[in-house]
């Protein structure tokens, strides 16, 4: 640490070059921060509550309905704490392009119990239980679509015809607005939940069937046994089920979208390869023009090893400085992107794991780019260097 001044002075010996290099490093780590947020947004991180949830869906395909009669039988399995069920609605509010701002799901009364991370004020919860046509909406969706409590909202469905209206439009009374407990789960707020009993009575076909069950287990370590027990209930019937943890279910879904990890990884590899070349060149230049100075250092008693250390420290400092600034910028930009997209995008904030990985990468890249120049500095012979040979 006592040589920090020396390293710092060496780094800013050529201000323009160092600043340009810093800006390149900054751009690379800004990209790293943002792409990692994209990756995190797709791999919805396991929440504390999510670990204990199992998703039961049809083995044939996700669109195949299950009979409602499974509910008491699942509930009877030892270790099951709670069972809820839901149906996909598939519609839009006002305009088709709003489709992805708010997904509509018909849910059983117990559904909100299985999602303790969705926070709904108790009086609104009570209103939801008492209003047959009631619906609760996530805060993000409510903001994006300008929906308030007390609104009567018509939703144009695409699958289910409503007996009452004769077409596919369903009207709900918004009685509550829920929030996701954690910032990284904002995606859950793009939902409208309404009552399954109202939905089931109103629809013209598929009555008594269910899209999927959500099961909460007492002990996450027992998930595997309970999943097997649930699947055994319907084995060899015409409605075989597939039970998996919520995380496995989500991951399978993301894998169907695209191999996000692979795309992000490939881009970052290209970025960091370029970065290593660029900063490596800067460091090589910096050492080349300082050969006489390094020789002087050695002359006044610095060991070869401390010269090596000084140059390595300079390289690491350069990358860490630019990298930290880049990640900070990403941290500032992401909420701005979220706000600017009007609820269409919900990137989770940059978390500790991104910072950790980022710092490891910075130090590693610093060591890689500093290594050859540092070796050159260490090996130089004082006499030759001072003579300018």
């Amino acid at each position, binding site marked *: 640490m006592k040589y920090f001044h020396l390293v710092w002075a060496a780094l800013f010996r050529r201000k*323009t*070059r160092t600043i*340009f*290099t810093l*800006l*390149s*490093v900054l*751009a*690379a780590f*800004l*990209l790293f921060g*943002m*792409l990692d947020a*994209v990756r995190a947004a797709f791999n919805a991180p396991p929440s504390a509550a999510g670990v204990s949830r199992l998703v039961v869906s049809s*083995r*044939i*395909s*996700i*669109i*195949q309905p299950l009979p409602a009669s499974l509910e008491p039988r699942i509930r009877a399995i030892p270790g099951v704490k709670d069972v809820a069920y839901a149906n996909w609605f*598939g519609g839009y509010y006002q305009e*088709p392009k709003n*489709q*992805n701002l708010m997904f509509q799901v018909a849910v059983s009364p117990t559904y909100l119990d299985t999602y303790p991370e969705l926070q709904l004020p108790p009086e609104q919860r009570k209103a939801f239980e008492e209003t047959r046509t009631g619906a609760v909406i996530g805060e993000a969706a409510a903001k994006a679509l300008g929906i308030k409590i007390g609104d009567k909202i018509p939703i*144009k*469905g*695409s*699958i289910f015809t409503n007996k009452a209206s004769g*077409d*596919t439009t369903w009207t709900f009374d918004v009685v509550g607005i829920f929030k996701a407990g954690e910032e990284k789960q904002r995606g859950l707020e793009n939902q409208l939940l309404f009552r399954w009993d109202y939905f089931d009575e109103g629809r013209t*076909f598929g009555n008594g069937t269910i899209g999927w069950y959500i099961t909460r287990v007492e002990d996450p370590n027992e998930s595997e046994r309970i999943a097997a027990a649930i699947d055994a209930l319907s084995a060899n019937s*015409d409605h*075989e089920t*597939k039970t998996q943890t919520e995380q496995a279910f989500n*991951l*399978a879904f993301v*894998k*169907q*979208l*695209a*191999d996000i990890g692979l795309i992000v990884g*490939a*881009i970052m590899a*290209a*970025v960091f*390869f*370029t*970065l290593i*070349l*660029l900063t490596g*060149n*800067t460091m*090589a*230049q910096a050492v080349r023009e300082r050969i006489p100075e390094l020789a002087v250092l050695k002359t006044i008693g610095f060991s070869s090893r401390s010269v090596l250390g000084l140059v390595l420290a300079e390289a690491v400092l350069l990358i860490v400085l630019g990298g930290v600034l880049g990640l900070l910028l990403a941290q500032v930009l992401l909420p701005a992107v979220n706000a600017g997209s009007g609820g269409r995008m919900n990137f989770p904030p940059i978390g500790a794991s991104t910072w950790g990985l980022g710092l490891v990468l910075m130090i590693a890249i610093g060591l890689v780019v500093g290594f050859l120049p540092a070796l050159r500095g260490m090996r130089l012979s004082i006499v030759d260097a001072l003579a300018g040979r």
Partner: protein
Amino acid sequence: MRILTNLLMVVLIAVAIFALIVLPWPALLAIVVLLALWMAFTRGGRQAWSVTKVGVATIPLRLGSSSVIVIGIAGVVGVLVALLAMAEGFRQTLQQTGGTDTAIIMRGGATAELSSGISRDDAVLVQQLPGILKDAEGKPIASPELVVVANIPKKGTNTDANVEIRGVGEQAFALRPNVKVVSGRAFSPGLRELIVGKGALAQFSGLEPGSTINLGNQQWTITGVFESGDAHESELWGDVETVSATYRRQGYQSVTVRLTSPEALDELKAGIASDPRLKVDAKTTLDYYSAQSENLTKVIRVMGIVIGVIMGIGAIFGALNTMYAAVATRAREIATLRAIGFRGLPVVVSVLLETMLLAIAGGVLGAAVAWLIFNNYTVSTLGANFSQVVFAFKVSSALVWSGLKWALAIGFIGGLFPALRAARLPVTAALREL
């Protein structure tokens, strides 16, 4: 004065980039030809040419730092071209699936077949509407269809993916003449048989002809492979009545018809409007499939451009560093030239040209790598019917050209400031410098 010139530079850069974006390639070629003529026939031009020659000849001496520009720009162009090729491939695959001479009829308000429904009675009515082409026997060329989704493991990951099973009517092959069975035979109506699209066969496991899959607790045999060159290749096709019976469906989801001409759509729509029993919408399949590709294409394009801009900014600073260093090492030589009567402009032009040459090399390298690795690279994603659409990256010449434009823009910005520095070098000070 200083502020004024800097302002001028910003305007110049903006104009140059704007020109790059809007001008078609013949106009840019004309600029290059003009530049060549200037270099060949004017005094200043010949000076610029000889200075450029010296600069380019010394590139091998600065191989390490010059490669920063080349590799930096190759990285930007490679990533950009690959991402845009993904968007382009998806868009092409879906757009080719539709045409203006076929129309799809779904329940009013439905945006995808999966969420639509058409009763058997309505399907019969719809096929009698005006505007629909009839075959030699006088039967309308129309196919009532039903799409269901099956869980089939994806190759490589072995996790279940949603694969589309399309039940088609007997006219389906007359309706879509591009669909050809390339190996095995077509399914027989009434039997539990399927044919598999080439794309689905490549992406999902267990779909080889002769194998059986489990749909709705019944065994279905794959009898052949079909090729269509569009999104249908991601599907499995079977007889609509058999699929419907297996999944206990009362009706169909859509009816696709061949129109007598693209203009006949209005006739068809008028027919639908005049029959109060029908609550359906008709649109051309081109509209239907184009709309499906819109969202994802837009997302990938925006992502590609944002990533390209951030990487491009990084590459600009890399280029600036390299060219400032190059100008610094050649300071004495440039000062000598100025001392013996070379003007400032040739020096500016030569440094700029050198940077842009390196940039072009980088752009070509990046586009070539993107082409080699990603052209026809096949992936799949979830489409509108909640099922997998298989598509291939398409590195088209238009994309390569836009990648090269990016390279030129980065080279221009990265070379301009060092070029000005070179021209402004105080001759006496530079000559004295060691």
